[in-house]
């Protein structure tokens, strides 16, 4: 018999955390400002808060450094500081926007459904639909706009203790438009994920962050270095025959978002459990992600060193 300590069953401690940077009262202050003074007032305060963090909190600044060094190699120190400010500001705006979405309603944003027809066509195949996305733009805005698919939406997300950011519907204005599957649940949520796909539903999962063990990742070259990317989305696609659409919801203007369907990945059925079998599909996702960060460098919110 294997033991609990065997390599197969061992869980690795993940190197990242979903915990919020700010404290609970700081988040509440922003929520109140949005409620009583609107989005632009929250942005105005955000400019100052981000400036403070970038200038006086090197630990916060360093979080985006590994990504920015690879995306913008050879920058001088002043340009690096500017890059750090830009990416932190964009991340802050996304947090403000999702609170605006929950507090003031989705009507506050224009949403460009580029790729709408393609997603509808994929959903109509009736084999379930896997939406593979990344920590880019504001996925919550995208989720709020996926009702057009007219099929239940399921989101794989793990929230940690200390994550005080509210999901947009938790502000109480709207009912949750999707069901959450926790990858820290029984069997890593695998049965739930299979279940919803077998019922023709939509499953949205992050393609740039492993939530289980290292066994569920494959090494793929990303921005000139090797990174472990999860292959669970492609294993699910192989097990169910569901198509996997790579989507990137991004901020396209001060009050607007767009949903880009970057790629549709078809995975042959019954590829088995060998990680290497899924590398070509993870690679397709990563190439699409590289194209995205080329076009929108300050909307890839990667705040830990994935290359280490």
């Amino acid at each position: 018999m294997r033991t609990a300590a065997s390599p197969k069953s061992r869980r690795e401690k993940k190197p990242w955390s979903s915990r919020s940077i700010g404290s609970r009262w700081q988040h509440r202050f922003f929520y109140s400002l949005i409620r009583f003074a609107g989005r632009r007032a929250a942005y105005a305060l955000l400019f100052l808060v981000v400036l403070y963090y970038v200038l006086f909190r090197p630990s916060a600044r360093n979080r985006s450094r590994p990504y920015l060094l690879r995306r913008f190699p050879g920058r001088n120190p002043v340009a690096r500081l500017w890059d750090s400010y830009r990416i932190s500001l964009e991340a802050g705006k996304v947090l403000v926007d999702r609170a605006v979405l929950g507090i003031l309603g989705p009507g506050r944003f224009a949403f460009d459904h580029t790729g709408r027809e393609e997603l509808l066509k994929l959903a109509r195949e009736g084999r379930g639909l896997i939406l593979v996305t990344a920590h880019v733009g504001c996925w919550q805005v995208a989720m709020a706009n996926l009702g057009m698919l007219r099929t239940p939406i399921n989101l794989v997300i793990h929230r940690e203790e200390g994550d005080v950011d509210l999901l947009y519907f938790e502000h109480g204005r709207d009912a949750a438009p999707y069901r959450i599957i926790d990858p820290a649940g029984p069997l890593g949520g695998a049965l739930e994920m299979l279940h919803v796909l077998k019922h023709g539903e939509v499953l949205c999962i992050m393609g740039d962050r492993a939530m289980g063990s290292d066994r569920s990742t494959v090494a793929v070259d990303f921005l000139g270095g090797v990174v472990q990317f999860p292959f669970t989305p492609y294993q699910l696609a192989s097990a169910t025959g569901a198509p996997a659409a790579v989507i990137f919801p991004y901020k396209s203007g001060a009050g607007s978002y767009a949903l880009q369907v970057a790629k549709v990945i078809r995975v042959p059925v019954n590829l088995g459990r060998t990680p290497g079998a899924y590398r070509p599909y993870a690679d397709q996702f990563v190439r699409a992600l590289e194209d995205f960060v080329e076009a929108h460098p300050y909307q890839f919110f990667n705040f830990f060193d994935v290359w280490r």
Partner: protein
Amino acid sequence: MTTTEKLKNILVEDLNLEELTPGDIDDDAPLFGEGLGLDSLDAVELVVIVQKHFGIEIRNMDEGRTAFQSIRSLAAYIDERLPVR
């Protein structure tokens, strides 16, 4: 061959359990975590294996959780759904 024996052979072969032989697997040992040491990725493969080798589709999540407790519970789940021979 009983369903239990067939399952053990299939698991060792399809899940590449290299350190084990079918005879090493205890009927009542947990499939996941301690015991056989399978994890969430294997859960996906198990669903595929049951469909491929026995023609049974596990569509109900709660039933699946119960069936995946051990080899014995999974064999019982399969036997209940196999056509009477």
